[in-house]
């Protein structure tokens, strides 16, 4: 579904991604870990199409199409969803209004009929229950006055409504306590499916106890330097990221998806 080939990207003139290769298939959950500044969030934002991120080399194919040529709204309509690390507050715009417009833009693109207010609210009710978010929050202005945990739950709720093919979760666990983390992780897990793929970007191993990945990639200084399963996460938790520099990768390891 997603093929990233030799991706180089800069932000404000600084090269952050220095040749990332990654392949993701439907149904898979890939975790990306790495120290601060390694490029984890940059990768998430480049995939979502955020302005200010310049791709200097490489290619990204999403369902066979050139992703980097698409505007952010087009990527969303094609099925990419980014759960922000710091969801922005938009006072004056109701969550429901904005989400209904977004969903209908996506549906229209897919050749589906648009939902009217009534049907949309029924969908909202269903999805709010699924990801355990208070329906009342949904009717307020986007993220306004939401706590950190509520903002993250709102991201997952939007994901449930928009039904993406590829979901990118950018440090969804940052700023959350254990209880909030559990709720958010549950929401994500209910949305796992064989038709959907997920990229879970995280700094700490803890999230991966709740959202168990199929593959783990470690990003250091803009390159994937190690790949493995969830056990690798525990090793990193114990030994830190600098251990990777000292210890060469084991010669035999589980086969990883190749670009």
């Amino acid at each position: 579904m997603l093929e990233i080939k030799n991706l180089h990207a800069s932000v404000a003139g600084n090269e952050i991604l220095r040749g990332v290769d990654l392949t993701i298939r439907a149904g898979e959950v890939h975790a990306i870990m790495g120290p601060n500044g390694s490029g984890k969030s940059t990768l998430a934002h480049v995939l979502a199409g955020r302005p200010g991120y310049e791709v200097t080399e490489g290619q990204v194919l999403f369902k066979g199409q050139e992703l980097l040529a698409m505007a952010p709204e087009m990527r969303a309509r094609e099925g990419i969803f980014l759960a922000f690390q710091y969801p922005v507050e938009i006072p004056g715009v109701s969550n429901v209004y904005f989400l209904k417009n977004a969903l209908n833009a996506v549906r229209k693109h897919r050749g589906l009929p648009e939902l009217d207010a009534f049907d949309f609210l029924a969908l909202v009710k269903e999805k709010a229950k699924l990801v355990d978010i208070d329906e009342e929050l949904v009717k307020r202005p986007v993220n306004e006055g939401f706590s950190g945990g509520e903002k993250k739950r709102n991201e997952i709720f939007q994901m449930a409504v928009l039904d993406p093919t590829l979901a990118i979760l950018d440090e969804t666990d940052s700023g959350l306590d254990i209880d909030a983390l559990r709720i958010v992780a549950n929401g994500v897990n209910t949305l796992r499916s064989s038709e959907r793929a997920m990229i879970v970007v995280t700094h700490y191993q803890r999230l991966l106890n709740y959202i168990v990945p199929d593959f783990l990639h470690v990003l250091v200084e803009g390159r994937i330097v190690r790949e493995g399963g969830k056990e690798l996460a525990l090793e990193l938790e114990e030994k830190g990221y600098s251990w990777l520099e000292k210890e060469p990768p084991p010669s035999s390891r589980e086969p990883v998806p190749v670009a």
Partner: protein
Amino acid sequence: MEAIAQDARTALERSVLDAFRESRSPRDPEWLSNVRRAGLDRFREAGFPTARDEAWKYTNVAPILKVPFAPAAEAGPRRLPDLDTAHQPARSGTQLVFVNGRYAAELSSGATSGEGIEIASLREVLATRPESVEPHLARVAREGNAFADVNSALVEDGAFVRIAAGAVLADPIHLLFLSEPDFGPTVSHPRNIVVAEPGSQAVVVESWLGAAGAQYLTNAVTEVVLGEGAVLDFYKVERESVGAFHVATMEVLQKRDSTFTSHSVTLGGALVRNDLNVRLDAPGASCTLNGLFLGSGTQHLDNHTKIDHAQPHGTSRELYKGIMSGKSRGVFNGKIIVRPDAQKTDAMQTNKNLLLSKEALVNSEPALEIFADDVKCRHGSTIGQLDETALFYLRSRGIGEDESRALLVYAFASDVASRIRVAPLRAMVERHLGLRLSAGDGVDLSGARA
């Protein structure tokens, strides 16, 4: 014959002096002649403002002065153009229509001069019972600016609204001013007087519209008095042509425990200057001034406000928001004076401006003069652009770029727009917000507000 026209410096000044000469009538009561004469004398002495005048340093009136605007010819009955529902009264409501500054009875409805409530043409009241007007005309507007002085010099017609003590009016009173120049650029000098007697409650909507693309000058003065405990909501909606000039002074005098709420919406005009001066002249008075101005193209929109806390326990709240695109320019100057006796004053002023293009410009100046020591006064001003992160957030969910921008602009204006309690008016403003941004069809923003 006085040689008054010879040393006139500009086309407009010449035209004003000519009009003054022609307007004087022996039938006018002496007090009215004095008002006019005093206005003319003040004008002749000061002249029109220049950039050297502090209050006009950002607003250059030269483009107005060089046009020989002349009063429109008196015309017979006209037809009302198709109007947005925002400018139509309720079925049993009142709407006074003025064309080129003159009352058009045949287009109006609900005018009344009963004991309790008087809603009538100023010209008629001056002709039939001038003693009703004398206590109120040019009493409030003390220190004028030259344009207001010209209005005094040439005062002829406008709306006279008096709401009797204790009267509570449910439907808004609509005052509609249409400009339709026939031959050449025209000027009108409407003078509106609104007297809300003690304990009364009413809503007044003053709308300014005109023929599309036409060039005209609206030089208006509105004087408002609120008696003890009166409650008045005043809406001013300016939607004149892109070739029009609008200079207006509104003076408000508030008595004890009165409540005044003003909503000023500026959408049209090549150059608009609103002076809104409120004097809290007795203890316990409160005022709320809301303003929204949208500029595009080369519009120049200037809002000057002054809130004079003259007595103790007064409350004022001010929220003005500007949205400027293209090469338009906005000016906001909010003066708050708290006099030595005005203890326990509670004043808050906020001006926020959104620039949608690189060439748009806003000058925002709060001006606080505080002479009492037991008061609460805060003010804040921001000038910024659309939040790029918010824009990306909306786009990342699939909403197109134009629509995302429109949504954010709407969100910016929504707290001021949502305060408009006259529903058709609010809907018109919300539509306008959506329309201004998209090149193509307007964006349907119904339901966008949370």
